[in-house]
């Protein structure tokens, strides 16, 4: 029973009286953190709830107020990560940041922009430059869309990905100009072929400086270069505007378009709120929730494309708060969220590349999306083979009682059950769901969990043998929860 006394602090015991936040507040905060981050532990959720929902939203929206990942410390322990040429190492570098960041929305936005500005190592063949593009998303991802577009247009990885290094006066390459309008801003149906050509002309001369080739001394950064001698400075007409436009002028016009506002709103809705059809079908498939898209588009227009303002409107909206478990977790969300909750890979530990590879095996090879359209999300993340991998991965993690996060969950379950002195299978299952962040499961799943909980008895822990057996039994319930259909949703 001494152990119980020590663990009571987990519950926030004050003067002997256990103070519990309102369960609905915890559920809502868990929802916010699954979407705006990679999920929180029960303890983290309680701490956030004590600050209030809107205050937490503001905290998330200003990541610069939280400490950044210490790159010097990271590269001391993982010196091979710095300037790494191999894709899995660059992927691991990002996975480390997703797990250990104290700026969850910054990292989540990097993932969002990577999905929108999908740039793939399959062609670029330079994972280091893709990692640098992700850094652009961190730095500019909550600023204005206009500034982000300019930075992306100057990203050497994007230039190479969409062939703009070959876009010169008199030898136009329309690839970047076309995707800029079709996939990065206006969407199909809101521009003409002439607009594509004129946009491409405006970006002539935006290229990559001559670079030190890879090896024999490792990788060297690619650098943006503007070559005025290759730029077409003659008059252009774009979306009804006429002038001697350069690339930034085109971005200025694009950023002011209502179509851009709606396009970005739908992307944000799809990533943060609920699954939507793939972007390729948006010109023929209306939004799931047109009013929500209008609200977000209005926030874009009123803030002149300020991403932070749009996200503030999104996270505080009723449609967001009511969208719990309306999205299938992406592989990165599932893997990082599971590892975070289990307390694995906090700090420095070998094996991160296996987690990074796992993302790929589950269908989301970071830095290597399948095409410029990004990944097909929602139910398209799932096929029978991938589902088995997802289930096995999460179940294996929660079945490992040596992991500190799993131990914390089990202890919390034991304390909850013993404090209430309710050893019924129902109480044990509720305590498990609660300790995993108040997960919500269907009646069918609940019934299955009850069947197993009936084998747990009254969770004895008087001896070491009993304690270990109880740890294993509770861990099995956690494993079953992680294997449930509901765990696949964010």
């Amino acid at each position, binding site marked *: 029973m001494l152990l119980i006394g020590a663990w009571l602090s987990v519950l926030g015991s004050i003067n002997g009286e256990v103070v519990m936040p309102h369960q609905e507040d915890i559920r809502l905060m868990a929802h916010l953190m699954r979407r705006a981050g990679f999920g929180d532990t029960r303890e983290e959720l309680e701490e956030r709830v004590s600050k209030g929902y809107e205050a937490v939203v503001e905290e998330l929206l200003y990541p610069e107020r939280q400490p950044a990942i210490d790159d010097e410390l990271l590269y001391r322990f993982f*010196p091979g990560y710095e300037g790494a040429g191999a894709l899995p190492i660059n992927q691991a570098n990002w996975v480390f940041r997703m797990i250990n960041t104290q700026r969850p929305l910054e990292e989540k936005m990097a993932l969002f922009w990577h999905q929108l500005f999908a740039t793939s190592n399959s062609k670029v063949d330079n994972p280091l430059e893709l990692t640098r593009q992700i850094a652009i998303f961190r730095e500019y991802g909550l600023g204005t869309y206009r500034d982000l577009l300019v930075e992306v247009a100057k990203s050497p990885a994007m230039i190479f990905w969409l062939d703009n290094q070959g876009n010169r006066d008199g030898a136009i390459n329309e690839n970047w100009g076309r995707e800029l309008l079709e996939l990065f801003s206006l969407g199909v149906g809101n521009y003409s072929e002439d607009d594509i050509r004129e946009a491409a002309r405006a970006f002539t001369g935006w290229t990559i400086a001559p670079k030190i080739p890879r090896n*024999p*001394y490792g990788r*060297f950064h690619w650098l943006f270069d503007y070559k005025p001698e290759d730029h077409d400075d003659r008059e252009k007409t774009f979306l009804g505007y006429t002038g001697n436009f350069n690339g930034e002028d085109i971005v200025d016009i694009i950023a002011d378009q209502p179509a851009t506002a709606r396009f970005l709103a739908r992307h944000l809705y799809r990533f943060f709120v609920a699954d939507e059809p793939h972007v390729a079908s948006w010109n023929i498939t209306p939004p799931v929730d047109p009013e929500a898209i209008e609200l977000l588009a209005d926030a874009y227009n009123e803030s002149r494309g300020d991403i932070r303002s749009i996200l503030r409107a999104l996270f505080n909206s009723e449609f967001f708060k009511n969208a719990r478990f309306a999205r299938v977790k992406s592989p990165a969300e599932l893997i990082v969220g599971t590892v975070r909750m289990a307390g694995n890979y906090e700090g420095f530990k070998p094996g991160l590349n296996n987690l990074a590879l796992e993302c790929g095996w589950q269908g989301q090879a970071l830095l290597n999306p399948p095409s410029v359209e990004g990944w097909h999300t929602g139910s398209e993340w799932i096929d029978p083979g991938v589902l088995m991998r997802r289930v096995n991965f999460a179940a294996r993690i929660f079945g490992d009682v040596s992991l500190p996060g799993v131990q914390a969950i089990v202890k919390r379950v034991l304390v909850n059950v013993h404090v209430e002195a309710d050893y019924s299978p129902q109480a044990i299952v509720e305590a498990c769901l609660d300790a995993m962040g108040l997960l919500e499961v269907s009646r069918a799943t609940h019934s299955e969990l009850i069947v197993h909980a009936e084998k747990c008895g009254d969770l004895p822990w008087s001896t070491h043998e009993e304690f270990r057996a109880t740890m294993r039994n509770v861990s099995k319930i956690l494993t079953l929860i992680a294997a449930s259909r509901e765990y696949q949703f964010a």
Partner: protein
Amino acid sequence: MLTTVAAGRVYDYSYCIGMYSQDGRGFWAPQDFVLGPNGRIYVLSRGVEQLGQRVTKINFDHDFQGQFGSVGEGDGGFVWPRSIDLDRHGRVFLTDEYLNRVTIYSEEGSYRYHWGRSGSGDGQLSGPSGIAFDSQGTVWVVDSLNHRVQSFSQIGEFQSKFGKRGDGDGDLEMPWGICIDRQDNIYVADWGNNRVQKFAPTGELLVKFEGSSAGVGSLKGPSGVAVDSDGDVYVTDWGNHRVQIYAADGQYITALVGDAQEPSPWAQTYIDANPDIIKARRRTDLEPEWRFRRPVAVNVDADDRIIVLESYHHRLQIYNKLKDYEEPLINL
């Protein structure tokens, strides 16, 4: 500058050794090296995750003499190898900051034994990094995550310790490299406090190397340290990508920033084999390639040659400290 003249010293860049390689001839994210008898150099590669960890045996003439060790937690394996040194018999002592142990190999690399236990008690280790021997054969290990230095017999018997976490005089914050001079004084790269501290064997603080309050001669995350026959002190200023040089009393002298304008013979072979790389190199400014990037360890040989290991560029750069230098004619 290929030749650096400052405060009566002359440092003349000589040549470089090495290149990037996941295996065999070359290094991968090397972290430390040690000079052995007969011109042999042992270079410790950290690699990445499960790849590239090894100790490479070379000499100053670019001869690849083999390699030993690989990733693993069994006897002779390592996970996060950090530093190496040789005892008076030429045996190789290697620290592993993940396994919290010191592994001993023969001169040619056969596994002999290992010692070390995880923890913070006397003789226990947490993130052992720098390792060095004093004149009596005592092993000094930088116990980095315990923020202290401990000494052991060669079979791992605890002998003494000094240092505690903090930023006051004599305190340490995640110290990294270590070297011991001919008087058995101990120099510790106090990584988290951006300084090097020189201690007597008893642990008494003697000198700090950290530059002036105006920032001249400052350090950012120093990783390695060495002393030449004149008592001058060389520090790999890992976070600033340079080597800082100080007089014995801590007075700042000058910096080296890397001068490998000519690729090593190994690197040149790689370049010559690919015409596209030759073309690309002719079109661009190669200075970022020849400057230091993450200089991580430094040693001085019996001839006062200063040898600097770069983690990011996977190579050694070698400088001569000239004793008979004459200034060129000023009116050339």
